[in-house]
């Protein structure tokens, strides 16, 4: 080994800044308060465990007697998801083009489009469903509208980020032929984004199926309505059947979509 360097070694760790200290202490306080607020106690945990065992024992074996109703409700949930995502993705394309730096016509429009997407994303799907149940009444339409908003919030953001990553060159080449803005977008930017847009859209169907299940809990149609009824009437064996059906549908679609994605990318 050579002689020690004449320069002093860099420190092993840097002292966290004052701001970092404040953040860490705040986090710790928040965490402890959360634990305290949940009133966690050995007693409650034990009682919870026995209740859970009771639920499981009542739920087994699952009761598929109402398989027809359950089947139709599951189909309705899938319908809500697919219709909602389709409209959501179609709406997301223009919105994302207006929101992406390289395709937006100007800064003002870009700002507005980004805010719209942010609003769609920030409000959770259940709250969208509650709003639309008030607006259009109970049933699948409210679910579809909620899924559309949820999809736009997620998909439009991904699309626009993808558009911004597209290489400039091909678009410049088409611009240089004298082509108009829309032609350049359709000829250079969309082909390059297509694979990742499809992957995002498929993923958003997966996400939408899961959220369409829960939307039923607030009356926005689909299998969630059946599930919440069964739970409320303590028919845990029927609830278990519904949960199993949901599980199979979600896992089945995830398999399907991941195999499609592999083929595209």
């Amino acid at each position: 080994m050579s002689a020690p360097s004449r320069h002093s070694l860099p420190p092993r760790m840097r002292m966290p800044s004052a701001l970092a200290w404040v953040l860490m202490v705040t986090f710790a306080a928040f965490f402890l308060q959360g634990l305290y607020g949940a009133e966690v106690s050995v007693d409650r945990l034990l009682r919870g465990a026995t209740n859970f065992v009771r639920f499981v024992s009542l739920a087994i074996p699952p009761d598929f007697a109402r398989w027809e109703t359950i089947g139709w409700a599951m189909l309705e949930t899938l319908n809500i998801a697919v219709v909602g995502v389709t409209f959501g993705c179609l709406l997301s394309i223009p919105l994302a083009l207006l929101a992406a730096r390289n395709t937006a016509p100007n800064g003002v429009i870009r700002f507005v489009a980004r805010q719209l997407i942010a609003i769609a994303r920030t409000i959770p799907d259940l709250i969208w469903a509650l709003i639309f149940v008030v607006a259009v009444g109970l049933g699948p339409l409210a679910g579809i509208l909620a899924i559309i908003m949820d999809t736009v919030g997620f998909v439009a953001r991904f699309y626009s980020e993808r558009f911004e990553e597209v290489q400039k060159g091909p678009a410049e080449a088409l611009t240089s032929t004298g082509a108009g803005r829309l032609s350049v977008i359709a000829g250079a930017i969309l082909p390059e984004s297509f694979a990742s847009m499809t992957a995002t859209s498929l993923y958003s169907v997966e996400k939408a199926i899961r959220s369409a299940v829960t939307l039923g809990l607030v009356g926005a149609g689909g299998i969630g309505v059946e599930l919440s009824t069964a739970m409320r009437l303590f028919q845990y064996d029927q609830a278990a059947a519904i949960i199993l059906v949901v599980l199979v549908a979600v896992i089945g679609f995830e398999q399907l979509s991941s195999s499609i994605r592999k083929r595209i990318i």
Partner: protein
Amino acid sequence: MRMPDAAKPPVLRAHEIHVRFGALHVLRGVSFDLARGEGAVLLGANGCGKSTLLRTLNGLATVESGRVDLNGRTITDAPSRVLRAARRQLGYVFQHFNLVPQLSAHQNVLFGAMGQRRFGVLSVANAFARTEDRERAMQCLERVGLADRATHRPAELSGGQQQRVAIARMLMQAPQVVIADEPIASLDPKAGREVLELLWRIVEEEGLSLLCTLHQLDLAQEFGKRIIGMKAGRVVLDAASPGIDRADLDALYQGAVRVDAAPTPQEAAA
């Protein structure tokens, strides 16, 4: 400075062009004429403003002052309809080819006509394009020797082949002037020479004007009948090529060559 040839009216004229990116004064009063059928090589060190100059010629970069005329018509600050009409006459060949990676060579060539057709991309998408256009794109590929690669995507072609597809796209566009920004800088010497020979041959056969930047002085003297030399945002040399002293070319690469290193006239005066 070279005087414009009265017999040949300039097809492209740059007049006192200034371009600034923030504090950086990139083009500091650039003027030149390009006659119909004239082929010129633009030389200059890295960062002297060549690409910026070429980009102002078809409005990809905006000028601070000065103007560009195409066939006597000013395209600087022109309405977008006029600018697009001008771009159709200016075929651009890029260093990195700029083909759409997901599309076939044939489709990329068809896109050369995008600016000329009423419905833009719809008129030149393979699924909807007129048969004459599809055939002409095929002929353009034949002229660059790649008819057998029509269905290949750019990634399945070598760099030289990709640049030839880009040249076919330029042919499809049928411009009056070709602007080539370092068309062979990403190619090996052999492929580069082949592409340069192809480009010059097509330009001559079609009677086009050409403005081409290069970094190889030998090739510049071999191909360019005229050489325009830039240094730190200015044209410092503009002469017919046989007869230029090699020392004058070497001088383009010595001293303060980059615009971001050279003081502006105001700074120099202060």
